């Protein structure tokens, strides 16, 4: 249990920055800790660690709860979006498996009609989960595949429709507009849908994830986040900055490449793991 000195603040700063929390959140936390220390509210480095964890937990608990509501009248339509390689297709597959295990009927929509073998990849997850995959041939218009999948899910009275989309950089206006069109077209097939639009963020991403969330959020109404690859060495701290600014609930965390490697997001344990 060490005494706290000026260079201790630097160690704290290093730990927070190294967890990809970003400068702004880090500075707020350091200022808050410094404030409490100078008022004698905390004294030892054990106090500081505890205070930091509780601050992080407050950041992640102060706003929308990390849950969503299932649609009551028809399928819950969930659209997965995000930059290239973030883990959308794999997350769609894991979610399908999870809900299938819970006795829900799930339909998968293969709306990445662009990337090589994207449909094949999702179809394998369809086999793994025992869920129907609605797809079209390579190069088809993603919005029309989304339309057909939505109609099919409604007709089949499915519980969940998971719409996988092609990865895209938020710097590409045409691709961002396409996403808006996909969401709108889903609404034409089933008014009120999509009920959820989740940004899938790679846990090893740095500060760019905040920019991703802001920019994707201008093309579609994001309603939540999934954070993947948290089994890696990264702490995924950028979600704190994203949540702080945009209050997007973090629904699920990816912890590997297999069927069961998905967990509901828990702010407390995430905060604990972030700063150890």
């Amino acid at each position: 249990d060490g005494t706290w000195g000026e260079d201790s603040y630097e160690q704290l700063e290093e730990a927070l920055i190294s967890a990809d929390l970003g400068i702004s959140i880090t500075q707020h936390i350091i200022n808050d800790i410094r404030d409490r220390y100078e008022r004698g509210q905390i004294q030892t480095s054990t106090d500081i660690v505890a205070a930091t964890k509780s601050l992080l937990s407050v950041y992640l608990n102060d706003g929308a709860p990390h849950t969503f509501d299932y649609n009551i009248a028809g399928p819950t339509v969930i659209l997965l979006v995000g930059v290239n390689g973030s883990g959308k297709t794999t997350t769609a597959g894991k979610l399908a498996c999870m809900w299938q295990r819970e006795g829900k009927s799930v339909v998968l929509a293969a709306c990445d009609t662009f990337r090589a073998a994207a449909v094949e990849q999702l179809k394998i997850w369809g086999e793994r989960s025992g869920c129907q995959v609605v797809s079209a041939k390579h190069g088809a218009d993603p919005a029309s595949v989304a339309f057909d999948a939505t109609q099919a899910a409604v007709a089949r009275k499915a519980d969940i429709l998971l719409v996988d989309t092609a990865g895209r950089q938020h710097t590409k206006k045409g691709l961002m507009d396409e996403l808006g069109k996909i969401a709108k077209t889903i609404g034409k097939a089933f008014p009120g849908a999509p009920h959820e639009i989740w940004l899938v963020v790679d846990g090893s991403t740095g500060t760019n994830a905040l920019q991703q969330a802001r920019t994707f959020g201008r093309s579609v109404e994001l309603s939540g986040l999934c954070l993947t690859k948290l089994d890696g060495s990264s702490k995924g701290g950028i979600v704190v900055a994203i949540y702080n600014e945009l209050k997007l609930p973090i629904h699920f965390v990816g912890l590997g490449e297999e069927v069961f490697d998905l967990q509901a997001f828990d702010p407390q344990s995430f905060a604990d793991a972030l700063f150890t």
Partner: protein
Amino acid sequence: NLSDRLNDTFRNLTGRGSLTEKNIEDAMREVRLALLDADVNYKIVKEFISEVKEECLGERVLKSVAPGQQAIKVVSDSLEKLMGETNAPLNFVNKPSVILMVGLHGSGKTTTTAKLAHHLGKQGKRVLVVAADLLRPAAIDQLEALGREHNIPVHSDRTGSDLNSIVHDAKRIALKSNKDVVIVDTAGRLEINQELVRELVDLKKKSNPDEILLVADAALGQEAVSVATHFDDALDITGIILTKIDGDARGGAALSMRRVTGESIKFIGVGEKIEDLEAFYPDRMASRILG
């Protein structure tokens, strides 16, 4: 951008030409924030700032005619120098030359394998790519589809063989069909997964590659140091390819990975199309990182 901000900082000082140590301290704080904001690793930023600060506190800057300008120049020149050279070559010693593509999940290895094959093909090289990702669903399909679309021969084996025999077969085929280069696409893996890193160490031993390229996402955060260090320590990588530069990540990971491996960034990925592989320019990367 940082250059403008530093210019303003210095211009707001008294009209006298000279800078004080305090002025330099303030400027270094700005630079530090810019680098951290660009995702350069915390420790790497610390080292860089202390080196640059020392130079800026030297006679040559402080007593120069336009010390503010000099200081800014020291920062950007140092960063540019750290980023390495442009057109760092690929080494083709063996016939066929083998290139292993390695990196984290989703970094762009498969796409870049096809792009690199296309690029080398345009230079007159005969290339065979190998689908050695036996893990990811439809990974082989993905590389084969890219191969069909862009006329790139692909060697694959769906009979449950192991990596080493697949690459061994590919080399044999390449030799018989007079190929110059064999590019091996591997499965994404965590740098901290010892078993999967050992798999690559074993593959390296058995396939004797001329190049081992770490394919990394430009948006990679603070763990870029861990990623580069683990892969380099295990495999002695020969180069880096930075992908998704067409996004707006500042790309600080590039500086971190350069610092800890000393290896060159040999190409950048600037999009999803087959021709979206470009030369790396250290000056452009430096100014992008500085913002």
